[in-house]
């Protein structure tokens, strides 16, 4: 029986988000070919500016792929267009409750297929990236991104690039031009520090990027469109944080901890492009937190008070997806909160800024100075902040092979955790999905023994 299926089908929002993630190709194709919209490749949660234009569509490039999903998921997608996802979800829940074994098994397969197919696709992209020549010495995330662009860059009109402290990331962004020189590269150069008038410079750099987007779009930039989008995404960010902190840190979950981690992983991936439709994504994530609250209110779900809270991080550049399942079986619950560690879940401060560009510059600079930025001391403080806010019982550091940026801070983080939080921490190395599950399992086993006392 699937560990996740029983639970996930109770959340129509999760079904919708999963569907939009792995069955989004047709929709993107329609946008590009029929609606004549421009697809713009994004990675990391840097898609916001693109939403300021009606005919520009940000896309995390793996979504342009055909996934080997179960035909049943396609049927569900079709059914949802007639009956709505809520009814589909209720119907699936009814079937599971009724215990109709054959159909129940199909549902299990559908849900497991979603997860499995996504992981397979990531590994496939990894292989394509390496075949195209990216050195195996780079992290999983960059290798898969190269693979995604090698296969699908022809469909996009531009790539949206932000400079960050990771030199591999910056060079990867430049290298996309070598994959397809016809695709425009749009840049936002983020000053590494907030000194002198660097905020003004950042605002100006954002304006330049907007100007490039205007040229591509043919539409003029509008303050109000961007402001509205920021309001919407602030709501997304708040809901996302509520899921992490209000639900994640609580003692009663609306589902089992492995399913909850699975949902957090889904959010981590999909947050990068808001599934190309911020309004829909906002509705979905809002519905998700409501569904969770509703189930908790009704006492549906699971008492997780005895399950230790384990912050597993960083995972956005690639991690072993079996981690949360293993932790659950060992009596813990894995929590993923990377985007908040990197301060990318902070509000874009539009309520106290009249100019949305100024507000966005503030947001980006805050992330640079206090999260993803240039200083390991600050970065490790941010890990500490999140672990503390979650009242985590332990921290598992995913030392991503080939990550020369964030993985390098583990020693400092470990010292701070031991000194200030007095909780155990451990690391494991990760290179490719499924490659090292035994070792991960053994190490987590020893670690959880320690956490459980």
């Amino acid at each position, binding site marked *: 029986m699937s560990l996740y299926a029983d639970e996930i089908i109770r959340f129509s929002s999760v079904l919708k988000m999963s569907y939009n993630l792995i069955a989004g190709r047709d929709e993107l194709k329609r946008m590009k070919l029929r609606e004549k919209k421009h697809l713009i490749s994004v990675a990391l949660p840097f898609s916001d500016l693109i939403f300021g234009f009606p005919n520009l569509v940000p896309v995390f490039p793996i979504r342009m792929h055909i996934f080997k999903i179960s035909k049943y998921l396609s049927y569900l997608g079709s059914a949802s267009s007639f009956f709505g996802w809520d009814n589909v979800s209720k119907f699936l829940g009814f079937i599971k409750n009724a215990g109709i074994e054959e159909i129940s098994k199909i549902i299990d397969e559908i849900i497991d297929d979603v997860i499995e197919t996504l992981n397979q696709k990531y590994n496939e992209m990894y292989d394509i990236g390496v075949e195209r020549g990216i050195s195996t010495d780079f992290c999983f995330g960059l290798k898969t991104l190269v693979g995604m662009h090698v296969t699908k860059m022809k469909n996009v009109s531009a790539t949206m690039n932000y400079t960050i402290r990771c030199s591999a990331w910056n060079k990867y962004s*430049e290298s996309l031009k070598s994959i397809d020189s016809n695709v425009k590269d749009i840049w936002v150069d983020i000053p590494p520090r907030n000194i002198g008038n660097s905020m003004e410079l950042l605002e100006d750099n954002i304006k330049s990027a907007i100007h490039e987007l205007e040229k591509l779009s043919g539409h003029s930039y509008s303050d109000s469109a961007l402001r509205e989008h920021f309001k919407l995404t602030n709501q997304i960010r708040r809901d996302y944080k509520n899921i992490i902190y209000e639900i994640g840190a609580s003692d009663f979950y609306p589902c089992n901890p492995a399913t909850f981690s699975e949902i957090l992983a889904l959010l981590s991936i999909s947050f990068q492009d808001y599934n190309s439709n911020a309004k829909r994504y906002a509705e979905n994530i809002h519905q998700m937190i409501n569904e969770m609250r509703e189930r908790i209110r009704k006492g549906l779900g699971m008492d997780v008070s005895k399950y230790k809270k384990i912050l597993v991080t960083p995972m956005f550049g690639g991690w072993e997806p079996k981690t949360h399942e293993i932790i659950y079986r060992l009596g813990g619950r894995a929590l993923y909160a990377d985007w908040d560690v990197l301060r990318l879940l902070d509000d874009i401060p539009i309520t106290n800024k009249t100019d949305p560009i100024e507000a966005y510059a503030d947001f980006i600079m805050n992330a640079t100075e206090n999260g993803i930025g240039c200083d390991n001391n600050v970065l490790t403080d941010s890990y500490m902040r999140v672990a503390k806010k979650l009242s985590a019982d332990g921290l598992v550091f995913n030392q991503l092979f080939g990550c*020369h940026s964030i993985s390098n801070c583990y020693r400092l983080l470990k010292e701070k955790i031991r000194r200030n939080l007095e909780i155990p921490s451990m690391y494991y190395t990760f290179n490719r999905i499924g490659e090292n599950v035994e070792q991960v399992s053994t190490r987590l086993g020893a670690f959880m023994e320690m956490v459980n006392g």
Partner: protein
Amino acid sequence: MDLNNLLMEFSLFLKLKKQEGCKVASFLAHDNIPEELLDAAGVFPLRLMFGGNDELMNMSHDYLPPSTCAFTQSMIGLFSLKPSQYQFLDLIDYFIVSNHCVSDICGSEIITKYFNIPRLNFYLPYTKNQNSLKYFKLELIDFKEQIEKIIDKEIADEDLLKSIKKYNNFKLKLLELNSLNLIGSKKLQIIQTAMLYGPNSIEMISEFIEKNKQNQQKSKHIKNVILTGCSIFLNDNIIELIEDAGGNVVFFDTWIGNQYYSQTFDNETLNSISNPYDLLVERFKRNRLSDHSIPNFLEYKVTRIEEINRIYKEREDQDLGVINHIIKFCDHFSMHSTYFKEKLQKKGIQVLNLERDYSRANRGQLSTRIEAFLEMIN
């Protein structure tokens, strides 16, 4: 001079400097550090440009995962192990944390934190446009203020201008050395020594040039190559492997090499820009081949190599081979290596992407690869 003697003499030199009241500021960054500002303040800029070995790399694993640039690993290993000939590292008063690459950030932070060396910050913008030049100037001013705090006095513009001219002359002298037709290892040894000592070595370079002007030689039996990518650091045997295989590096298109000493000003520029900070900004602007920069680094690099090859071909009637030296886990050169090779090979220029770390075990394999490449290029 062998390495041990060189380091011993350098150690004495640095001790004397300290006795004169000079402070020492060290850095890992390969480019764009305004050493003139340090010099104008009476601070000696010590660039870390030492090659590694297995032992040094292993020592760094207490601080960093092994999948970190082998050079950074080795430098952390140096601070951790402090081999006897590197005792001069104890004379460092400040360490400059910069963002040439992320290994520079992480490695420098580790050195300052765990080896208790006070930190100075100097960060760079990533792109090259009007705003990034303005940002670079902000960093220069901030850096100046940090240094002024150390020395407890202001750095006068005239002193900075004097230092800029001093470094300019030093680099011009190195360019002169570069134009000599000498075997690569001989040239490299002088370049490395000179860059370690800075303008203090200008007489030594002049003497070397005078002595060797008459000894220039061309050999038809040697296969000439450009070395690009990562630098060859002191105590690294890769140049010997190239020469043992019958090759010769005629052009060091690396940071320890042309990338450093080609960053000069002509007299017209020196006389037309009166603000010394604007001169440093101007140099940053012109430094298109800095591997730190995006988004056109690869394009400029390929064009540059083509240009060097074209000039050489006009003179010698044959193409140069290109050895793209990649120190393992170097983000900047590794990421582009496949495209770099493809683009140049399309233009008929043969490229060897030579990736390696500092372990002794791979010496044989490197030799084989170099030999095979050199056989192929003619």
